[in-house]
């Protein structure tokens, strides 16, 4: 626990609050010192910790993969290249099994999503108090280190993909074709308004489910880690129990972070494959 004077509620609240830089209601700019202050900032704020850790993980991805790519050889690959190629090959196989159109962007994007999201999720496995405590010792009040527990991150990716879905739909089906797909499905043409509502919901549900699934899973996982961490201070009996639970949940969480990263990448490929698909007339 960060400090012994905190209540459990305060502890949880503290761990779920981002380090927010934004505009106070009185018009001045600065770091929010409480969760209420942060909430009051509204849209004119930025989560410094989210940005920082997503960039750290992003550049970790880029650094490792670029190091391998720059020295990539068709001969006998070294350890790093082997490891990187294993992931690239896995993503390439996954992409080519789902996405059968000519588009060189899709596979690299799936790779970026898979590895970057995995790394952001991985921050969840770092014990919840380590880095926030370190930050507190340096005078920073809030430090939420798992970027994928911030809906800004997941929704930013999901909405970027949504824009690509719209773009490729219009590019490959034409504006009329895209509209026809939304309006003339699944019922006959005279029920176009009903179709539009149904298909519109389906379309909107894609980015929402994509972004919120990842956010929800990681947020819930983080919350459980925080609750387990609370138990550490609950006495000689519950402390070791919490230790076992921490270990068990971390083991399980390794599966979840990988699975969620993979799901995000695969759904991206699937949605974009659907966007490229030119349907026969109905």
């Amino acid at each position, binding site marked *: 626990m960060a400090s012994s004077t905190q209540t459990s509620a305060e502890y949880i609240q503290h761990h779920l609050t981002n380090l927010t830089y934004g505009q106070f209601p009185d018009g001045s700019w600065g770091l929010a010192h409480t969760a209420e202050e942060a909430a009051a900032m*509204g849209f*004119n704020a930025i989560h410094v910790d989210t940005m920082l850790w997503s960039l750290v993980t992003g550049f970790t*991805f880029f650094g490792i993969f670029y190091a*391998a790519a720059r020295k990539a050889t068709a001969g006998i690959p070294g350890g790093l290249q082997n490891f*990187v190629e294993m992931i*690239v090959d896995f993503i390439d196989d996954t992409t080519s099994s789902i996405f059968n159109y000519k588009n060189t962007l899709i596979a*690299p994007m799936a*790779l970026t999503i898979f590895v970057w999201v995995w790394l952001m999720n991985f921050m969840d496995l770092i014990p919840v108090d380590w880095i926030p405590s370190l930050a507190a010792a340096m005078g920073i009040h809030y430090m939420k280190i798992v970027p994928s527990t911030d809906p*800004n991150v997941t929704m930013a990716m999901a909405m970027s993909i949504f824009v690509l879905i719209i773009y490729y739909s219009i590019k490959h089906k034409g504006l009329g074709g895209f509209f026809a797909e939304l309006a003339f499905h699944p019922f006959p043409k005279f029920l176009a308004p009903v179709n539009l509502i149904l298909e519109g919901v389906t379309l909107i549900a894609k980015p929402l489910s994509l972004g919120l699934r990842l956010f929800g899973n990681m947020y819930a996982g983080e919350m459980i880690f925080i609750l387990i961490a609370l138990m550490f201070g609950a006495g000689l009996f519950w402390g070791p129990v919490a230790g076992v639970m921490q270990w068990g949940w971390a083991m399980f969480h390794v599966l979840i972070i990988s699975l969620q990263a993979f799901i995000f990448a695969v759904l991206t490929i699937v949605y974009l494959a659907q966007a490229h698909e030119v349907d026969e007339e109905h």
Partner: protein
Amino acid sequence: MSLNWTFIGQTITFIFFVWACWKFIWPPLITAMGERQQAIADGLSHAERAAKDLELAQERATDQLREAKQEAAALIEQARGRASALVEEAKSAARDEGERIKEAAQAEIEQEVNRAKEALRVQVATLAVSGAERILGTAVDANQHSRMLDELAADL
């Protein structure tokens, strides 16, 4: 927990990393992997071809060996036949030669005998004359009795 400028920042970050991966990471890795795959496929097909070649060569070698063996056996057989023919030839030549020598020897012996007979005949004639002279106590006139003596010598 609401959306704010972080959303915009994250969108830019996402686009940046996707672009960076698209431009700098994916192409060299995929190229290298494809090249290696090609190289391995080539190597395997080469190995396959080499194995087939080896098999063919072995087959050919076996064939040639068998042929050579057969040829050698034929040669040996031929040589053996020739050798026995030579021996036979030599044998018959030797027999002929022996035959010839024997005949020559016989002829010579006969000649010697004839010569000896001739000599003997002449001697007998002389002996008979001298014997008769002694018996008769008179000389036999060779010229006078030459006809009788010749008859005597011819009887011998």
